[in-house]
């Protein structure tokens, strides 16, 4: 499996970005919702610090991912009705926007609450906005609801991938699986577009 993508499947760099970002967002989102289970204020401080560090890592990864994708090839589209191809593109676009917006909204939330922002205790990042108690609630709610919205869009994304895999028996999911190999059946591939 090569680093770059080819006509038939995603390369290992694209797969790495896809799955690491997916796991980090789902894990960190769940972690974020569980903050109130902290046993002490200091534990919550440390949990939040970890949550922020992971979120910043996602932000850095998604920026690298976009840069990589702009220079990488893309596998050919699997045959599908036009509306499905359009829907897939729309869902992918919204997912990219949400993956960037989610950590950015957290950064904004952190900024208006006036808290420091440190990446794994190594270095600090500046605030995106001035401290503002009036925006605290709005920013926190925005950050949380962006995650719920992302989960909703993810249902469509995962649902479509499984539909392709189980019913269409094509390569849409296989070509993105970490150690997956595309089916070697020409009839399932067809011509793109």
């Amino acid at each position, binding site marked *: 499996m090569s680093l770059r993508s080819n006509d038939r499947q995603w390369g290992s760099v694209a797969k790495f970005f896809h799955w690491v970002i997916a796991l980090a967002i789902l894990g960190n989102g769940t972690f974020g919702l569980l903050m109130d289970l902290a046993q*002490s*204020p*200091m*534990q919550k*401080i*440390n949990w939040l*610090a970890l949550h922020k560090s992971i979120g910043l890592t996602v932000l850095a990864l998604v920026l690298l991912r976009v840069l990589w994708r702009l220079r990488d090839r893309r596998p050919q589209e699997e045959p599908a009705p036009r509306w499905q191809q359009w829907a897939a593109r729309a869902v992918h676009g919204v997912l990219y926007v949400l993956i960037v917006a989610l950590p950015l909204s957290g950064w904004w939330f952190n900024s208006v609450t*006036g*808290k*420091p*922002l*440190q990446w794994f*205790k190594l*270095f*600090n990042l500046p605030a995106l906005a001035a401290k503002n*108690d009036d925006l605290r609630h709005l920013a926190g709610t925005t950050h949380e609801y962006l995650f719920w919205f992302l989960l909703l869009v993810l249902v469509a994304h995962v649902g479509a991938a499984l539909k392709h895999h189980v019913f269409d028996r094509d390569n849409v999911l296989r070509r993105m699986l970490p150690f997956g190999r595309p089916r070697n059946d020409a009839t399932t591939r067809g011509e793109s577009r």
Partner: protein
Amino acid sequence: MKRLATLLALALPFAATAADYTVQPAASTLGFSDTFQGEAFNGHFGQWTAAISYDAANLATSKFDVEVALASVKTGDKDRDGALPGSDFFDIAKFPKAHFVSTGFHQSGALVIADGNLTLRGVTKPVSLNVTFKPQGKGATLDVTGTVKRLDFGVGGGDYADTSVIGADVKITAHLQLAPK
């Protein structure tokens, strides 16, 4: 006899005790700074009193006696200001005041250092402060800086003892506007 009287008269001003001053609260500040998650923050105390006797030429009779109402702490952050008076930090229910009394002054190069004892959260430990005293008309300005190790006094012990999150060294900065008593 006459010569002795003259000598005494000459010597008297030098033997006199250091001048007493009163603090002008509106123009004076008592602050501190530390770091939280790698970022510096500043705090200050709104209520404190200081009895200052000082004479640069007569350090032996100079004296600082400062009392700080710890409940008057402000650091510009709601969560922090809520936590500081609690039992994990100042524990003002048991120890409402901090107290610094100088035990002596010494010169270190161009610097004057006030040695003394700080009592905070029921613990008394020696603390040294750098003193910059500038006469100003009949009054003076007095700037004091120093460092206090918070864990020496159990401020932020237990869970909060992690100095990679809350810095170990708290820098003290005071600016006093003094008027003659």
